[in-house]
């Protein structure tokens, strides 16, 4: 515990010394906080190291900050960014829709529904997302035609990106939603049942809104993870943010500056999402103590 949190008792100077205390003369003894010299020494070392790193970054011309600035708002980069954002939004919405379905199946009384859901979650959490994407990318080897159409035409890379990321996301979303549903008092469901509310209505109007309080924080983490995770689709030639800067540096050989362009964009969007999460959490705290 840092000694800064140690409270000095507010003893009025006129107060008499405690009867059982040692003889003190006129004034009661003052409290002097211990100085954590070791921590300050460590902090100084960290600051020096940080300064050295910053100086080398700023002073290293290979970063080519001029190029970073020049490419930051170019059309290919912005198009890539747009695709990354669209992909993230689609995967989040579809992933949580499928995840909610899986969560309700997992909580159903029917053992087949429970088993199927548990099996799905187990499988899609066990296989790395990159492996899953490459699998869908090559699904044509297993099924050359689907629905009478050549698989490669039906499953273009962007479709595979949405499909693959969604199936993966849903497995995680299912567990988040399930934990959220379980966090809602069983009495809420019973009250809704005794009022004649149907299964779907109970879930949508009563249980899920309350579950959101425990769903939003991990879902926010997942969203940020998904945003960054979409960069794996550059492996299957989908023109996302990372792929579009890769296209540029394959041409110009300016690898580091172009990676910095993508990095700065990822950091900006992630920061905005964190702020947004704060407001969403506030909204779902409605009706709880201290919130309005």
């Amino acid at each position, binding site marked *: 515990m840092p000694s800064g949190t140690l409270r000095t008792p507010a003893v009025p100077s006129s107060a008499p010394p405690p009867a059982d205390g040692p003889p003190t003369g006129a004034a009661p003894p003052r409290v002097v906080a211990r100085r954590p010299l070791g921590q300050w020494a460590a902090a100084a070392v960290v600051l020096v190291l940080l300064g050295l790193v910053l100086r080398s970054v700023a002073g290293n011309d290979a970063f080519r900050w001029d190029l970073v600035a020049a490419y930051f708002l170019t059309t290919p980069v912005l198009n890539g960014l747009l695709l990354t954002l669209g992909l993230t939004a689609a995967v989040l919405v579809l992933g949580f829709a499928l995840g909610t379905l899986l969560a309700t199946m997992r909580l159903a009384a029917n053992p087949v529904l429970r088993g199927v859901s548990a099996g799905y979650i187990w499988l899609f959490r066990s296989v790395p997302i990159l492996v899953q994407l490459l699998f869908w990318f090559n699904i044509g080897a297993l099924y050359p035609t689907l629905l009478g159409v050549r698989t490669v035409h039906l499953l273009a890379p962007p479709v595979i990106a949405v499909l693959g990321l969604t199936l993966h996301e849903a497995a995680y979303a299912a567990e988040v939603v399930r934990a959220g549903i379980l966090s809602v008092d069983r009495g809420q469901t019973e009250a809704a049942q005794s009022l*004649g509310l149907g299964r779907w209505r109970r879930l949508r109007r009563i249980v899920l809104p309350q579950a959101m309080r425990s769903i939003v924080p991990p879902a926010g983490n997942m969203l940020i993870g998904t945003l960054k995770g979409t960069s794996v689709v550059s492996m299957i030639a989908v023109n996302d943010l990372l792929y579009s800067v890769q296209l540029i540096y394959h041409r110009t050989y300016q690898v580091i500056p172009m990676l910095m362009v993508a990095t700065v964009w990822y950091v900006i969007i992630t920061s905005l999402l964190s702020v947004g999460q704060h407001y969403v959490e506030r909204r779902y705290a409605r009706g709880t103590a201290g919130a309005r």
Partner: protein
Amino acid sequence: MSPQPAMVEVRAVHKSFGPLDVLKGVDLRVAAGEVTVVIGPSGSGKSTLLRTLNHLEKVDSGTVAVDGTLIGYRRSGDRLYELREREILRQRTRIGFVFQDFHLFPHLTVVENLTEAPVSALGRSRKAATATALALLDRVGLADKADAYPRQLSGGQQQRVAIARALALEPKLLLFDEPTSALDPELVGEVLDVIKDLARRGTTMIVVTHEIGFAREVADTVVFMADGRIVEQGPPGQLLDAPREARTRAFLAKVL
């Protein structure tokens, strides 16, 4: 026996949770317009009995009928088939249930708590449901709390909202499971007053409670349950003051 038609007919209901027999053959008849108070020691099956009346709990055998309709099951020959959820939900809209811990919906305002079921289960318009809700809130003395959230209310106020919520469906029968047990002593009276008012209006009610004074004042019939059976029942004057069974006497000696 009352000349009134039976609002509730419970016949030979058995219910067990795994190896534990909780209801061991319960018969109960409640006439329309009457107030029945159920008392008995903890674990005797009072809540379980009440919950079978709106099929929150399934029975193992026996029948429960409310207003002449079997609850939760359909009879065919000598078999009872459980109804589909839709039909059970429709039956429940005719039976109000008030829980010990209120179970208000914390994310909805008071008036939204009252309009949710009429709108979604009975298909009322939101406008009509809101008008009814405000009238009911006025009746339980909470007209000014319509837009508050449940957690901003005292326990007694929350339970009065819960009663109004049950009334919003205009049920034929009201079930109360220890409606004042979660309340601070000084808040018990305001909730009992609301229930007494309902009794005066001729609402058919079954109330599980430990408030013997309330039973004496309001009940038409007091039922004493112990160990999964109805040991004894009768008008409050008889059951509370001159119980026939030794177990009733022993219980009353402890709680009075």
